[in-house]
């Protein structure tokens, strides 16, 4: 399975038959990574918009099993609500959008989970995680890490190595999103489902209750939004056109072109 076309490091294509074997660099990201990336992007945006719509029907958060307007919240967001029941201090009530928002939220969740499964299977089988995302031991030393962080804080242009491969901070944050934040957001989401937890009660009990699951779902989503913002800013710093082209067509152009 781990043939040369299935990695997304620079792809070396050997031109067949009698042509001289000149290696030509063509692909920054392989097709599966590009397709799953954009499906995930669309689903994430749908989940975010509908999640906000669902949230505003009750912008209060609790810890434990239960919570409602008669109990003390952990915190309340200073935003208007789409329900009369919640006292927000605003003199108006927003329109109810929960119906389609819940429909679309779960549909997007299904698509992103199936896409994520496909990506994860590919990542393990084709060695994408090992080759492209697992950081080098040498890069994990404090000196190397602080040098990379300092470079990011100066918004330095990417080096040629970074142009063709992920740097250590990218690798760590992508691994965090793929193996920690996405699994957590799925878990905390399912832990709010009364039917799901009837079959798997440990999934909600381990989180401290149904309202705790809801609160954690909110914070994990915030972490994912933070990742999205930093990700987009870094794409702009690294060269928006070149990076977008790399993730859409696979072609990154040449490093010289960029610098």
């Amino acid at each position, binding site marked *: 399975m781990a043939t040369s076309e299935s990695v997304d490091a620079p792809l070396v294509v050997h031109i067949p038959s009698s042509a001289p074997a000149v290696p030509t660099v063509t692909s920054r990201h392989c097709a599966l990574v590009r397709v799953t990336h954009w499906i995930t992007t669309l689903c994430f945006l749908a989940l975010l918009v509908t999640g906000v719509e669902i949230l505003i*029907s009750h912008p209060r958060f609790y810890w434990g099993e*239960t919570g*409602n307007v008669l109990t003390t919240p952990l915190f309340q967001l200073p935003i208007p609500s789409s329900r009369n029941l919640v006292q927000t201090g605003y003199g108006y009530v927003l329109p109810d959008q929960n119906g*389609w928002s819940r429909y679309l939220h779960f549909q997007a969740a*299904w698509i992103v989970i199936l896409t994520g499964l496909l990506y994860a299977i590919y990542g393990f089988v084709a060695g994408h995680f090992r080759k492209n995302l697992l950081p080098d031991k040498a890069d994990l030393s404090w000196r190397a890490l602080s040098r990379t962080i300092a470079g990011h804080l100066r918004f330095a242009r990417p080096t040629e190595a970074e142009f063709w491969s992920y740097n250590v901070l990218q690798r760590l944050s992508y691994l965090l999103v793929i193996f920690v934040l996405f699994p957590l957001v799925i878990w905390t989401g399912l832990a709010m489902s*009364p039917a799901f937890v009837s079959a798997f009660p440990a999934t909600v009990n381990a989180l401290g209750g149904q309202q705790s699951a809801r609160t954690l779902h909110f914070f994990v989503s915030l972490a994912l939004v933070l990742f999205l913002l930093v990700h987009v800013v870094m794409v702009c710093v690294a060269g928006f056109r070149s990076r977008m082209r790399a993730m859409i067509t696979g072609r990154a152009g040449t490093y010289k072109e960029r610098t």
Partner: protein
Amino acid sequence: MTHLSRRKLIIGGLATAAGVSGLGVAARLAQRYGLVPPDHGGIYGLGETLTYASQRLLTRHSLAREFSRSQISKRPLVNELAPPSEAFKRLQAGGFADWRLTVDGMVDRPGSFSLAQLKSYPSRSQITMVQCEEGWSYIAEWIGVPLSHVLDAVGVQPQARYVVYFSIEPDWWESIDMTDALHPQTFLTYGMNGDELPVGNGGPLRLRVARQLGYKSVKFITHMTVTDSLKKFGKGLGSASPEGGYAWYAGI
């Protein structure tokens, strides 16, 4: 075209053909085993069907979590309610002595039950959570007769697939499949926290569906119909919720 890409094309074509026919078979099987919700049409049908089918496969016999007496919410929330209808107010003035629940449809012995009759059946209680789709929740003790007991009394016919239930208030009706209708925690509820069921929480009679969100637990129940198809009720989407834009299945 190199040798490699032709092989890829053939494999891709075969995989697509297998996938499409696999989907066709899956759809037929899902229909046969009752894994397709009535609101499966439209752009959100895929997600709804996946949710309902997988929850039915995973949760057919599972019990909603029950809580200890100490976890009962001190003040159970009373949700916003439209002002009661004249019909409701008349029955309320009579202390609900004339409240009737009629059960008809695909049953051997259609019947009409007074509250006193329902209370004479074996009474059960459960301490479970009411979760609103908005995000809030509370825990209460619910007292009533399991719906399965009443369905046994009227004799449900074997081809029955759904129970449709109606509030005395207009345009307030829902339906559940037989899995939820016969579920041991699905109660015709007339008591709460050791007392009568308050009107604000659905008294005198509420159908409590413990494994679904609050909106499936319709208040002020007066009529039930057992059926094999939801097509002839309302717009054929299963209940008032999908007509108002909300999912028919509310286990999530």
